[in-house]
């Protein structure tokens, strides 16, 4: 393998940054959620790249756990979004200002 590991880390940092900007810019709860998935995937790529760099499989195991946690998070998060949509008829997070003082 001749590609430097840093290139993969740069791509992972870029994906994380794009996910961060997405969470801050978009107002649709579903798209914000997708941006969070993008952040998680960016970190996963960094973990796999570090695993390759050090010749140690622990990074891949942690990526595996991160996948499981992401799946659980998506299930609960989407259930919450569906529930909010039933009450408010909207997925726009600006409409959810009940707890704002």
């Amino acid at each position, binding site marked *: *393998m*001749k*590609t*430097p*590991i*840093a*290139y*993969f*880390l*740069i*791509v992972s*940092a*870029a*994906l*994380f*940054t*794009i996910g*961060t*900007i997405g969470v*801050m*810019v978009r*107002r*649709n709860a*579903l*798209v914000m959620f*997708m941006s969070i*998935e*993008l952040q998680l*995937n960016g970190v*996963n*790529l960094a973990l*796999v790249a570090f*695993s*390759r*760099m050090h*010749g*140690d*499989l*622990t990074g*891949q*195991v942690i*990526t*595996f*756990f991160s*996948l*499981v946690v*992401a*799946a*659980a998070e*998506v*299930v*609960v998060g*989407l*259930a*919450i979004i*569906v*529930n909010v*949509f039933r009450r408010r008829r909207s*997925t*726009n997070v600006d409409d959810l200002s009940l707890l704002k003082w």
Partner: protein
Amino acid sequence: MSPDQLVFWVFAPISIGSAIAMLFQRNAVHAALLLIVNFLTLAVFYLVLDASFLFAVQVIVYAGAIMVLFLFVIMLLGVDRNEALAERLRWQRPAAVLLGLGVMAELTFAIRAGVGFATKGAEAFATTANEGGNTLALSKVLFRDYFFPFEATSVLLIVAAIAAMVIAHRQRRAITRAEQTATPVAEAEPEPVS
């Protein structure tokens, strides 16, 4: 140019391009489809990085299961709703992009300082860490060193499944009874007036 470099330079622009394009999609379905493209390019990166098991898991779990769940919920909530692009705080969008670029610069600097742009992967990864194939080697690490966390994730998945059922459950009977009593009155009232 070696094969893995070629794969990287083909798929890295697709990956970042699809991620950026996702931000500009007003339709949530298009955003989800671009995210699937991004996840598939990440799967290719895993393959280049000698993590073939995670390649398969990424395609099945992320590009398959999770994104299908996303699309299912988008369809459930109505596809034709386009997001209102009006922003409550006028400075929020430029501030977000500016701070994001700051994060990117910081991470690049950290990578340069901590890893260096010339560091290659460990030599002979396939015969040392991946001895006997990636899946076998990964299972050895997972079931020997990380067995307890692995069992804990099974509890996590069960809790998440039950939580989703509890949160998304609708009490049908109470709503239909209320509607049954409410609708005849609402329909009958205007008639005597007119």
